[in-house]
């Protein structure tokens, strides 16, 4: 088995160029294989953001519908005629907080109003969760994601906003759909520590952008 080049850590470009030079006479020597650059998350976010997509924090979105409980959604579509044979798809999840990370007095009041309307009082943690399942397969689903959460910081008497800016789910062959469940959970017993714990554990298990299906 020939040796392979493993793309890990910092690549020495000088060494790489030398490898290419010496490997150029052997068409299938693996040293001649092109290095595929690690794709930064921002490129996936750009690819997932097509021209015409509405701004995440848009005050008004004509395609938006209410799902109740202060959840609104609008669907995004592929162009007519799009074909999906022999493709992979991956879901790119991006979150944007439309307020400052430490809520202003007005924002804090707004959040409390929402919580009160949802019959939640004295919530120490308020989490948004997103569950993704495959419609074509029973059973398995991705781990729950916590795209954003509010955790009460007693020392500052305000809610701290925590967000997971981007998450790329693994590639899958595109022969099925997805079901998305967006939900809120609140807890009166926990504090900012729980929010960090949940966020940290979830980030840890989902891992650093799995590369393949």
């Amino acid at each position: 088995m020939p040796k392979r080049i493993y793309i890990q850590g910092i690549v020495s470009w000088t060494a790489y160029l030398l490898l290419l030079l010496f490997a150029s006479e052997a068409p299938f020597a693996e040293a001649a294989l092109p290095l595929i650059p690690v794709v930064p998350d921002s490129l996936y976010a750009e690819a997932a953001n097509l021209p015409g997509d509405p701004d995440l924090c848009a005050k008004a979105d004509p395609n938006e519908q209410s799902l109740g409980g202060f959840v609104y959604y609008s669907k995004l579509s592929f162009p007519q005629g799009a074909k999906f044979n022999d493709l992979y798809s991956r879901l790119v999840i991006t979150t944007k907080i439309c307020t400052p990370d430490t809520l202003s007095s007005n924002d804090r009041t707004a959040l409390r109003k929402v919580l009160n309307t949802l019959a939640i009082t004295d919530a120490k943690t308020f989490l948004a969760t997103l569950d993704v399942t495959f419609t074509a397969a029973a059973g398995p689903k991705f781990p729950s994601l916590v795209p954003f959460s509010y955790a009460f910081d007693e020392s500052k008497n305000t809610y701290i906003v925590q967000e997971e800016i981007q998450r790329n789910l693994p590639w899958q062959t595109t022969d099925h759909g997805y079901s998305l469940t967006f939900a809120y959970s609140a807890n009166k017993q926990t504090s900012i520590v729980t929010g960090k714990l949940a966020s940290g554990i979830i980030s840890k298990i989902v891992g650093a952008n799995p590369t393949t299906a």
Partner: protein
Amino acid sequence: LISQTTSNFLNVGADIIDQVAATALTDKNVSSSLVSLDITTDLDRGAIFRFRDTDNRPLAAVKVALVLTNSLGKLIANQTEIPQFTNYPPILDFLLSGPLSGTLEDNIAKDTNYKDVIKANKETKSSDFAQSCDNLQATLRNIYGLNRYDESLAMALILYSTQAYFSNDNLSTSQCFKNPAFANVQDLKKMGLDFKKPVP
């Protein structure tokens, strides 16, 4: 098809989430909204969820959108054309996610059919070799979730690494990697790649 890799990844994640739920999120679920994305029929690409306040101001928003590619060697390609390469991308070196750590090659190296293909020599019957190749391709597609193009790339790299494939007629003239039911050498041509005996 959901690859075994992803299934394992999901199951482990679900277990840990259950633990988190048991310890941290025991309070009520205050709102739950289900949205289905039908990719192939309704052309759904994604959805934006917005969390608005009582005055309809957005407090936070979550966008869930699909990115497409035609080969893991391309990573991003919002197109349906056949992927084109000037050289073989190192598809066997791609890291798998979840509990199946390591590269694709690390994992398929444990497969009996892979071992049979790698160890084949001039004594190997053509029909046995072709059967091992078919079985290996089924594994690449059904267990590791490769699409037709990547299955083809992986098979080519495996056959190049056998050393024996191109030097033994019983192997090179077998139906290995030529079965129309699987990705085959014709797919490589469509991707602009040669599949011939390496230059010494």
